[in-house]
């Protein structure tokens, strides 16, 4: 939940379902994602554009914050103990980061394949190929893919460890807001979650809004949500001040 902060918007765009894109986001920017029609999924990966060997690390993100789900107050960690971005607001409440993404074979098994030849841009794009295409634009390849975030997708775990996709709260208009703490390369796609039970390939649009984030206050919710995050912010601040990441700021 929480703050609809001063929402100056520099750029707004809509990605229809089954598409991919990438962008670099500067430290101090905010990115809001809105599930326009309900039931969207946004696959996302994060890299340090100055050294893409530093990348989003889902296990560190989860274990540093003793969480399985992602929601407001959580920070997304790189493998170097630093924070790419913080989740400053979230009306969805639960985002997955352990189920990976769809593949061409997986889409064909689950929903049937629609090839480009017959369907043009209404083909059944998959998350794996989407990440490879976007990553390739920055010299990244198969070896650089990692466990991604699946925004808006809720996957719960039973006592025996069984995973299940929970579509109950997938209402239209849900949004989540990220505040970037480092300059970050973001790869994203709007391909469906691999466990989405929809009988047909879900093609759900997402609205992206970019603008300046409000300055971080002393009582910042993300920094103070856990003592680990105070240390994560300290590591990030050291990196920002230590020279190579300053770049005209």
């Amino acid at each position, binding site marked *: 939940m929480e703050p609809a902060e001063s929402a100056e918007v520099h750029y707004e765009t809509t990605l229809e379902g089954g598409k991919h894109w990438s962008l670099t986001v500067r430290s101090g920017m905010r990115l809001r994602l809105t599930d326009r029609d309900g039931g969207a999924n946004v696959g996302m990966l994060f890299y340090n554009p100055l050294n893409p060997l530093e990348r989003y690390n889902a296990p*560190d993100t989860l*274990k540093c914050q003793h969480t399985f789900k992602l929601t407001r107050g959580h920070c997304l960690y790189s493998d170097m103990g630093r924070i790419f971005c913080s989740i400053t607001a979230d009306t969805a409440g639960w985002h997955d980061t352990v189920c*990976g993404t769809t593949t061409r074979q997986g889409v064909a098994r689950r929903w049937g394949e629609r090839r480009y030849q017959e369907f043009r841009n209404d083909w059944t794009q998959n998350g794996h190929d989407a990440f490879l295409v976007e990553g390739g634009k920055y010299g990244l390849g198969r070896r650089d893919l990692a466990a991604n975030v699946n925004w808006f997708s809720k996957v719960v*775990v*039973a006592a*025996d460890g069984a995973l299940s996709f929970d579509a109950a709260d997938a209402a239209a208009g849900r949004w989540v807001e990220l505040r970037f703490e480092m300059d970050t390369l973001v790869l994203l796609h709007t391909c469906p979650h691999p466990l989405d039970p929809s009988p047909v390939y879900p093609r759900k649009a997402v609205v992206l809004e970019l603008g300046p984030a409000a300055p971080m206050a002393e009582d910042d919710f993300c920094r103070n949500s856990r003592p*680990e995050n105070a*240390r994560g912010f300290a590591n990030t601040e050291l990196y920002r001040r230590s020279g190579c990441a300053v770049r005209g700021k």
Partner: protein
Amino acid sequence: MLRASALLAGEAMYRQIVPAGDYWLDLVKSGQVLRIVDLEGNQAADTLFFNAADVAERYSAVDTIREQGNVYLSCGTKLLSTAGNVMLEIVADTVGRHDTLGGACAAESNSVRYALEKRTMHACRDSYLLAVAEHDELGLGKRDLTHNINFFMNVPVTPDGGLSFADGLSGPGQYVEMRAAMDVIVLISNCPQLNNPCNAYNPTPLEVLIWNTDVR
């Protein structure tokens, strides 16, 4: 699921003790059976697998748990690659549950989890980095050190979405055994972590055994 193995240690073609804080890296061929023994109990074996014929194809935690529909690994689990192929299958397990959510410890994540000063403590990723540097003929590097398995580690997920690092279910002499379905390079870091109960604050040796069963 618990299942003891019929294989006898005396008939193994290979046996090696791996002290805590060391790594073990070797080739396991298709059809061979690999056993990892928690010699003294409550140890964590942080393990990665690579297709020996194409190291860009490697163990994928997310594909493995999604396709089996369960976050815990045990007997019957097929360990899948990033290309969706079966790399190995767990064929015996006296513990019942192994983790693949928590990843490996690193100097940097230790600094976040425990204290900034802990960044100088030995960590699994340092063992991994040394392993790939000492075996640069394999062409592996930092980008290949991804989301691993923590054999013998117990990381329960709660219904409300929490994650905890609980005292291990393992004990002295417990083991997990897997049969390779392709030639795999196995990289194990015997976890040196001193800051959490995953190894009872006391890292201890592992043993690795390999049997030639029906090698193709």
